[in-house]
């Protein structure tokens, strides 16, 4: 009796073994499994840790209620947030605000991003490169700068100080709804983030074969029908991707809603969450961030259902295809002028004013005698900023510059390749649980508060675990966290790009005996080169601006330009802060120029596609 099941079991085991091997032989599966392991450790594990804390009493909770019993299971935190007399102010009002802001920002960015993308990719509008470049600039500036600019124009008497420009010119006080709260928050965030929409949708549009449209026209379809039946289905996946990306970015943003929302008691989950953190009610903050995660997972799920059911539309095939541009006719120049002017107003003017300010001894005094280079490279002068030297004379400037370049450079290279590989899994494994899981999980990092993630990373990487070395205190951890934090964007861009590339190129190579690595290196990388460069650029910008993540993880050796800004800002040395900002922007522009030159990539065709 005992002997019989053994061979049976062994045979069963061999079969299982073979099946597993077979399953893994598919690169989507093997790489997908590896990717999932990576995501599990860097994202799922931290999220689970966060989730765990919300069901346990902590010592801190004794402050909230006498019933607290440290270390034991409780639902108190969830009931407090979701169903107590606090819930309306603590959760429901803020969540409604968050959802409204998120949805409106996405919609507005969709309009801005898609129209720009269409103009640049599908029409014969002149100045394409200029317009595309200008579109990136608002993202270069910290988001709060745009809201500060908004206040300068539209603020009313409510928050005092210098009156807004509108008020001093027209002598009318703008109503509160125009000055603060929902409207300006939505507009600032949309201007700042619509570049993502522009790039992602631009990619889909630019790689779309005009023959499809032409065929439809020849068959007698009207313009609107072509748009509805041909163009829309093709770009819908990109639009949905962009929508979720912007939605997530908007509901997780802090600086803009804090500045513009506070005067009218307009709180979002992100501002409430920040407050919980600062007040050391960590568990409450965790519950709030988990609710955001649940919401976005739900949207992604719906998105997968919407896109997943459709057939996928391959637009990049082995065959060359002509792309015919829609002539704008007499509108060509007016459209270009209008686009360039609008972009200049929101992008270039702020930049120039910042630049001018960094050369002004006293801000706001427009005289030649007020011109100074002190803040750039001046020595110590006790009359200016209590003797603070110019930025370039600061002893740690060079070190900070080097660190910033190294972190941002390395992180963005790693991030863009990681994004492409994970995007490959998502695109090719769209019908399998693996692809969906990677898609879902890679979206969470935007919603994990930066500070919580950094804290968890200290614990996770302070000591060597298994084969992972102790990364804390090295630049490696800063790079890792930047890569992880940018995954939502890089994976979306990567999968959008991959989704457009037909499998037949790969299959042909496979028949020719090429390994997956060769295929990736020789086919997928070159085809996605432009997308890669654009992703690299955006991650680079993000990393150069990053503050929250880095501040917790730096040790003094890893001082960066942003930590230097932090120091100047605290002391109110505005011009010095501006100088650093200008240096960062100059670096990004230089990197952009190099990327365009070497990578032969430009943003006119968006991210993804050829």
């Amino acid at each position, binding site marked *: 009796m005992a002997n019989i099941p053994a061979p049976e079991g062994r045979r069963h085991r061999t079969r299982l073994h073979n099946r597993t091997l077979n399953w893994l032989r598919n690169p989507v599966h093997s790489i997908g499994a590896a990717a999932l392991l990576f995501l599990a450790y860097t994202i799922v594990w931290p999220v689970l840790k966060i989730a765990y804390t919300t069901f346990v009493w902590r010592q801190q909770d004794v402050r909230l209620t006498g019933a607290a019993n440290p270390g034991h299971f409780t639902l108190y935190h969830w009931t407090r947030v979701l169903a107590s007399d606090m819930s309306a102010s603590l959760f429901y009002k803020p969540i409604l605000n968050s959802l409204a802001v998120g949805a409106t920002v996405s919609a507005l960015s969709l309009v801005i991003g898609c129209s720009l993308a269409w103009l640049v990719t599908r029409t014969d509008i002149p100045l394409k490169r200029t317009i595309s470049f200008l579109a990136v600039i608002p993202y270069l500036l910290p988001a709060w700068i745009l809201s500060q600019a908004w206040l300068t124009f539209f603020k009313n008497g409510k928050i*005092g100080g210098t009156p807004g420009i509108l008020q001093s010119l027209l002598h009318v006080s703008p109503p509160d709804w125009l000055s603060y709260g929902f409207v300006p928050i939505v507009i600032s965030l949309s201007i700042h983030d619509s570049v993502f929409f522009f790039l992602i949708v631009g990619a889909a549009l630019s790689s779309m074969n005009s023959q499809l449209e032409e065929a439809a026209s020849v068959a007698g379809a009207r313009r609107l029908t072509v748009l509805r039946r041909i163009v829309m289905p093709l770009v819908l996946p990109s639009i949905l991707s962009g929508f979720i990306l912007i939605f997530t970015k908007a509901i997780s943003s802090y600086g803009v809603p804090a500045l513009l929302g506070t005067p009218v008691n307009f709180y979002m989950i992100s501002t409430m969450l920040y407050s919980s953190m600062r007040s050391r009610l960590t568990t409450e903050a965790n519950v709030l961030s988990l609710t955001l995660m649940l919401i976005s997972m739900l949207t992604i799920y719906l998105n997968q259902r919407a896109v997943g059911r459709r057939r996928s539309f391959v637009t990049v095939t082995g065959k060359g295809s002509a792309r015919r541009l829609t002539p704008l006719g007499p509108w060509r120049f007016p459209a270009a002028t209008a686009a360039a002017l609008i972009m200049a107003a929101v992008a270039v003017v702020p930049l120039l004013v910042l630049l001018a300010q960094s050369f002004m001894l006293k801000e706001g*005094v427009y005289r030649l005698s007020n011109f100074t280079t002190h803040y750039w490279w001046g020595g110590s002068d006790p009359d200016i900023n209590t003797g603070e030297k110019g930025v370039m004379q600061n002893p740690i400037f060079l070190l900070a510059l080097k660190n910033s370049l190294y972190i941002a450079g390395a992180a963005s290279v790693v991030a863009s390749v990681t994004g492409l590989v994970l995007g490959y899994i998502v695109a090719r494994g769209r019908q399998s649980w693996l692809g969906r899981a990677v898609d879902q999980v890679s979206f969470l990092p935007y919603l994990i508060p930066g500070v919580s993630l950094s804290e968890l990373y200290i614990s996770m990487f302070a000591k060597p675990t298994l084969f992972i070395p102790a990364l804390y205190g090295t630049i490696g951890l800063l790079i890792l966290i930047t890569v992880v934090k940018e995954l939502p964007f890089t994976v979306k861009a990567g999968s959008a790009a991959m989704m457009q590339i037909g499998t037949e190129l790969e299959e042909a190579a496979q028949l020719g005996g090429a390994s997956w690595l060769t295929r990736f290196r020789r086919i997928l990388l070159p085809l996605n080169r432009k997308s890669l460069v654009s992703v690299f650029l955006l991650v680079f910008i993000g990393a150069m601006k990053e503050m929250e993540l880095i501040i*917790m993880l730096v040790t003094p050796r890893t001082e960066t330009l942003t930590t230097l800004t932090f120091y100047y800002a605290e002391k109110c040395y505005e011009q010095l802060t501006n100088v650093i900002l200008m240096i960062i922007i100059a670096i990004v522009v230089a990197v952009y120029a190099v990327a365009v030159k070497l990578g032969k990539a430009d943003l006119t065709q968006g991210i993804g596609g050829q």
Partner: protein
Amino acid sequence: MNMLNRLHTNKPAKAALVLASAILILTACGQTNDADGANASGGNNASANAGGQAANETAAAGNDAAGNAGGNAADASASADSADALYAKAKEEGKLIVYSTSGRANDAAETFMKQYPEIKVEVSKVKSDEILDKVTKEQDAGQFNPDVIITKEVSGAVEEEMVKPGRYLKYLPADIAPMVDEPYRTQAEAYANYVEFRTIFYNAKHYAEVPVKNWWDLTTPEFKGKVYTADPLSSPAFMDLFTTMVVNSDDMAAAYKEKFGKDIELHGTENAGYEYIQELFDNGLIVLKGSDDVLDAIGKADRDAVGLAVSGDVSKNEENGWTIQPIYDIKPKTSVPDSGYFFLANKAPHEAAAKLFVRWMMGETDGKGAGLDPFNQVGSWVPRSDVQTKNDIPYESLNLWAFDGEALYNTAPKVRDFWIKQK
């Protein structure tokens, strides 16, 4: 910002200026995180530095070394702690690492490295609550990185979560201790090198004399819609002031009676402290993001509004073109101290250098060293009887509530809940 005046006088430049001004304000420092101002306050002295008792001045003079028992029990004698002895040891260590909530540490480090060129100081500037998390996680993982911690309180959490479990250690050199004012000599959780507090600021251009004498003045029709505060929800140090009012609600009730001549009537609130918060809201309190936003609001133009900000901000007057003045005498008490504490970190890897740096920042034995300069400023007091303050009022005469860390730690969440419900 005289841009606006010019807007009216200089017509040709008008168009350019309109565009330009879009961003003029953009870098107002209010937008950046002002760690120093944003964090919580004060020492956990059960006893008081309050009430304007000047007793310390005399007490300190006749003090003996035993008086600092609570301060540095671990440190043997003054001689082992002398600057020379420490420097000899510190040279071998070569450097030290500081986690500081205030940029003042950078300034002190600069002079320190001139004095002791063989020791390199590396300063990480982090907010108080983040230092707390960072150090906890590091120490739990067996990493002991920082040597010196310069931090504000976070509603009592620094004492409860860091000092009591031994993560931050007190250090007060024996030769300096006798000159230190209470509570910072023995009673507080540690020595604080500077003390600030939140108080009411007004525009000196508009008001010839101090417009507010009692906290309850802000609830009168005269100030309807004219009171600003930084958001206590994102700056817990502001919440600490309100929490202290709740904790000392009897004082608030007494001040009410003094102001209105009748006993306070509670409208569904628990005590006079909560009632005060509610009445502030009823009177149209305007909440802004940060301390600098508040000062911009009242200081940039000729305004009759008043606002709550940090005393130390008065030193930014010239830099920002403000004409603001803080009020240093309000009934029942002006405020609650927000102290900048010095700690040594547990298992500090460069202990001698750390002690040497702390001594330097304290201004050495006689309090005259250059290291003290960044801390001894207008609006910020050094609690040493032998140090001449730059303020008109000496530290001992400030009428402040005691910082009761334990009470704040336990009451703060309830006051925060109450605040959130007002919205």
